[in-house]
């Protein structure tokens, strides 16, 4: 059993108390809704600035965020190879297992992929951190969405708190490393990529 697994029992205890809340959490926990919202915000930042200089700066930040998402996903894939612990609805502890199973069946569904680290938390926090360095307001909105997404998945009983915290940490650390250490050393590649994008009218 992972650390803080008692928190799962506590949070899944709220399921079925307020059906409206369950619906909201089901909407937020969905595999497509929040990730598409996050990606559309990134797309809006790519296009939506009047000043060409500032737009280029944002586009480079978005490239950093995209690379960070890719690398952190790879890190998650590698970590997934060693089975740390099962999903909350598959653990040996009867009380936690049944509470999580009921929550997942009510709010979400029973996913089969590994529990630790959470891929959702990794992607969302990598994107938010990548944007944060260049656009504080958009970064804050993305952190908020990331938090809502991972909280909804915790509420749905499909992750332990430590899965989400681990995923978020991988996303944040990878994004910092990519934005501050790796990508600045790859110049002039990002600039060349933007030039190609300009030729195609997409940058």
């Amino acid at each position: 059993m992972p650390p803080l697994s008692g928190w799962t029992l506590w949070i899944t205890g709220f399921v079925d108390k307020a059906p409206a809340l369950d619906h909201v959490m089901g909407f937020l926990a969905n595999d497509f809704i929040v990730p598409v919202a996050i990606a559309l915000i990134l797309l809006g930042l790519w296009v939506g600035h009047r000043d060409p200089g500032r737009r280029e700066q944002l586009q480079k930040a978005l490239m950093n965020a995209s690379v960070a998402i890719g690398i952190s996903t790879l890190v998650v894939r590698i970590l997934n190879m060693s089975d740390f612990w099962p999903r909350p609805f598959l653990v040996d502890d009867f009380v936690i297992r049944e509470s999580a199973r009921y929550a997942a069946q009510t709010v979400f569904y029973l996913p089969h992929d590994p529990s630790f680290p959470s891929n959702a938390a990794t992607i969302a926090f990598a994107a938010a951190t990548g944007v944060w360095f260049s656009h504080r307001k958009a970064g804050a909105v993305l952190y908020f969405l990331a938090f809502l997404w991972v909280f909804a998945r915790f509420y749905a009983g499909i992750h332990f708190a430590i899965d989400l915290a681990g995923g978020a940490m991988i996303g944040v650390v990878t994004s910092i490393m990519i934005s501050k250490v790796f990508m600045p050393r790859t110049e002039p590649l990002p600039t060349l990529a933007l030039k190609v994008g300009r030729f195609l009218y997409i940058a």
Partner: protein
Amino acid sequence: MALDYFLLVFIAAIGLYQIVAIPAGLKGLWFFRQPKVQYAFGVLAIIGAFGWFYTSAERNIQHTIEGSQQLALFLGAIISAYFITAILASIIQAAVCTRGDTPIKGKQHDLGMETLKTTTLFGGILSSLRKQREKGD
């Protein structure tokens, strides 16, 4: 599910381009003359896309769309939405506007999206081709 996901992103992206083209001043992507109408269209497209996607079928189910497939669908949808927006805006503006496109100053590959502030996608491509032909002559 994959087609639904593609449509969600495609429609929402068309709406988003209409909204962000206002502050960015990218008139070459505008469908409407009035920014308020364009903004309303964009918001409705985004809300409509999410509303339709979530209510048209049960979405919290075990599905087969992997992360990489999701990324490919997303990229395909936003790029096609961008070019469809630019093409539609070119057609609408050619039909509605009586003024000609403002000639582009500078090289198109240096300006990129910036070109769309003064002309449409078609206008930009035609202007680039004209410049190349003049160079050839």
